[in-house]
């Protein structure tokens, strides 16, 4: 990660810069606390339809289990993907970058000694932290009510660690993937349709729609190589133990590779994009 205010100053003052940006973005987010609280509650609505759909599927098939999942297991899976998505989804990031490029606000980052990606990452962390603070109560409440769906109870400590790591990496991966998408706006001013395609792919390939291990082997093998699964399916699967503990690290290694790749892609796109912007635009 490049520095936010890269200069000859020491690490201490750099950390202070980061901390200030984080603090100020947090204050800004709390201005919208009402909107946030409502948004959080609304997140639970779509899951209810999915639960009914799966109960119907189980009833029609007459089976206790579909692949690795019981009916309760499927509900638990959806609830867990909600947590994954609370880390990896980046509302407004792509469109925000596009808007800044289009209306020229990007100039701010060109004239000040500040790094756009670092700045956006910090404001996003603040955004998320603020969200968790507000969402913690409704999430705890709903999960407490639904504790019966988690038939296996809590996983053991090492799995829990892996789970949290996968959530953090999911956040970073989601950020850099969507930031790269937003940076496309240096070349095409309008990225809405591109973002639509991305979100559609994301919806299917991340496991947001259904557990990926229900897919036939050939498809699952292919999807396992893509970065999308880390945005929803992967952390949930670690928690539920549907991934063998000894295979967890393999997947994490691949995730780390994807993360590095997207950090580099975003970096290169930003540099090229600014060069192009300064050459043609303004």
């Amino acid at each position, binding site marked *: 990660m490049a520095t936010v*205010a890269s200069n000859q100053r020491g690490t201490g003052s750099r950390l202070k810069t980061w901390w*200030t940006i984080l603090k*100020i973005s947090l204050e800004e987010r709390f*201005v919208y606390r009402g909107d946030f609280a409502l948004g959080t509650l609304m997140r639970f609505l779509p899951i209810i339809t999915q639960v009914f759909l799966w109960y119907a599927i189980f009833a029609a098939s007459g089976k206790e289990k579909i692949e690795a999942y019981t009916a309760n297991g499927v509900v638990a899976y959806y609830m867990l993907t909600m947590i994954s998505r609370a880390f990896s989804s980046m509302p407004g990031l792509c469109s925000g970058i596009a808007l800044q490029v289009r209306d020229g606000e990007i100039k*701010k980052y060109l004239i000040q000694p500040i790094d756009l990606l670092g700045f956006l990452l910090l404001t996003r962390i603040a955004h998320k932290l603020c969200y968790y603070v507000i969402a913690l109560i409704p999430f705890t409440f709903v999960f407490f009510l639904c504790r019966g769906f988690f038939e296996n109870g809590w996983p053991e400590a090492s799995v829990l660690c892996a789970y949290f790591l996968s959530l953090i990496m999911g956040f970073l991966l989601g950020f850099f993937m969507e930031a790269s998408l937003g940076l496309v706006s240096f070349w095409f001013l309008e990225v809405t349709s591109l973002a639509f395609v991305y979100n559609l792919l994301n919806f299917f390939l991340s496991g947001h729609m259904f557990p990926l291990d229900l897919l036939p082997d050939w498809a699952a093998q292919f999807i396992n190589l893509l970065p999308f699964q880390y945005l929803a399916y992967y952390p949930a699967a670690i928690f539920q133990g549907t991934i063998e503990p000894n295979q967890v690290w393999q997947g994490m290694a691949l995730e780390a590779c994807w993360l590095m790749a997207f950090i580099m892609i975003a970096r290169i796109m930003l540099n090229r994009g600014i*060069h192009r912007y*300064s050459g043609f635009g303004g």
Partner: protein
Amino acid sequence: MPMALIELHNLQKTYRVYQKKEGLRASVKGLFKRTYKDVHAVKGIDLQVDQGEFVAFLGPNGAGKTTTLKLLSGVIHPTAGTASVMGHTPWQRENDYRRRFALVMGQKNQLWWDLPAQESFRLHQQIYGIETQQFNNTLDELTDLLGLRELLSQPVRELSLGERMKMELTAALLHRPEVLFLDEPTIGLDVIAQHNIQQFLKYYQQKRGITILLTSHYMKDVAALCKRVVIIADGRIQYDGSLSGIIDETTNRKLVTLQFADPITLQLLKSLERFGTIVQDEAPRVTLEVTRDDVPAMLTAILDAHDIDDLIVEEPPLEQVIADVFTRVTKSSLDARAENGDC
């Protein structure tokens, strides 16, 4: 001779602009084959500015003023030419350079909209690495000068346009830039706010000895602040010198206002027209535009023939002189384009 603080040599900027013809058919065609047109926003500017100067860029819309400021602040790359500001090439965007200048755009907002300006200032402190002691001193000084103290803790979105502009200026000056670029800092402001900002800029510039380049459409800004004026039109410098010099150099006309003791008749007006053009006729006053050299002869003739209560001889208003320069340049460039057949 010491090198100038800002030096531009043959600076040029050409934009490539997508050309869309009217109609659906053309839009569909545009999907496959796009035609572009080169727009020469800046066609070769040579300029030297010394430390401590306060220079105004004047010019009609689209003349290349803002493009020049963008080039100087490193936001865009030039098509050709060189620029050096305090020894830096702006478009390399070194952090060392970015710490030494500021750009304020009257139509762009750099502060956090939902937060009090104070928070944005604190962020600036961190971004620019300003020591707390210096930060507090500078902020105190600026808020006192601009009368902002009461407003620091109010969200920016609740400030008036004038107050917001003052906050923008404060933010831009916190890191004590040596060079300041101002792009229409008083746009949309009422007369009092304009005046306040002018007074502030004048005082601050003299006190700190910073170098300021300003673009503005308000002649009052320019007259109040800048000894040196650069007129840019059609991407080139048309005039570079003192404000008063513009009138001497670009016009040879005077305005003569006569107040007659006798009633003004049609015949009298007719007789005046041989001296020049009547620009205002509000009995008992008549204002004429007269060639400078003809003024003495005209006055002798009129004073001989009529009773005059009052008499004023003055330069044409600055706005008008500059507007004339703009029109002349635009017209001649249109003519040139028409001759080249690329209109």
